[in-house]
């Protein structure tokens, strides 16, 4: 996986209780489908991001399972209701088990 840090945007890091918060997150990843061939006609080994999860504190907000039909540099926008302050932890795992993390602190206003 790339060495560049994930790009994360949060609509409001100081939401009111129950406010709907939007998050956009993107990493650089080839999302190699395993269907392409290299210059010599050999298939390029598959490696896609197979799991993304977002947690707020101890609560799992959601899990995203991408397949090979997700575009390179996977982008996701998700939405949740802020019910507590805490750290929003986002984790990407690819098929080589490389993990990337991003954190944003949310504080209820």
């Amino acid at each position, binding site marked *: 996986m790339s060495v560049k840090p994930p790009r994360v945007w949060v609509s409001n890091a100081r939401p009111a209780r129950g406010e709907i918060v939007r998050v956009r997150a993107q990493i650089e990843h080839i999302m190699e489908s395993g269907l392409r061939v290299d210059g010599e006609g050999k298939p390029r080994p598959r490696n896609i991001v197979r799991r993304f999860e977002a947690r707020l504190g101890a*609560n799992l907000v959601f899990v995203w*399972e991408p*397949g090979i*039909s*997700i575009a390179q540099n*996977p982008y*996701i926008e998700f*939405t*949740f209701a802020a019910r507590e302050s805490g750290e929003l932890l986002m984790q990407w795992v690819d098929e080589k088990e490389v993990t990337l993390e991003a954190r944003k602190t949310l504080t209820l206003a």
Partner: protein
Amino acid sequence: MKRRHFLKAFGSVSALAPLIGSGLLRPGQALAVDFNRAPFEAKTPADVLRLTGTGAAEATRDIFLKVPEVAENGASVPVEISSNIPGTTRLAVIIDKNPLPLALQFNFGPEAVPRLQTRLRMAESSRLRVVATAGGKHYTVFRDVKVTIGGCGDQ
């Protein structure tokens, strides 16, 4: 440190349990939940529906699906989905004519709003289906998308 090395070093997840309470470890990092990946390897939409148990999904107008009618570049097709069905816990996207049709699954926790935006790959013009699961029932909606340049081959 990679998780599997970490787990190997400690023997098992349960050996880490005391650390979770102490705040040294987040549950997310110790949990080794693996979802069923078999539907992602299915080669036809019918197999995806069978393997996910969603073949009996009923048509609905309560799923909002925004996708271009004509996608110029199949390598990156923006899609926006939101479900207005109360209690939606899962969304799946199936692209009928892609080599492996199941494009994604989304599993929502109680705080999440069942809504997402992402970018898909489409090999050719195809039907795009969304299947939502709520309260053990399945609902579906579809659009046909024309693709000018496919997004799967060598470029």
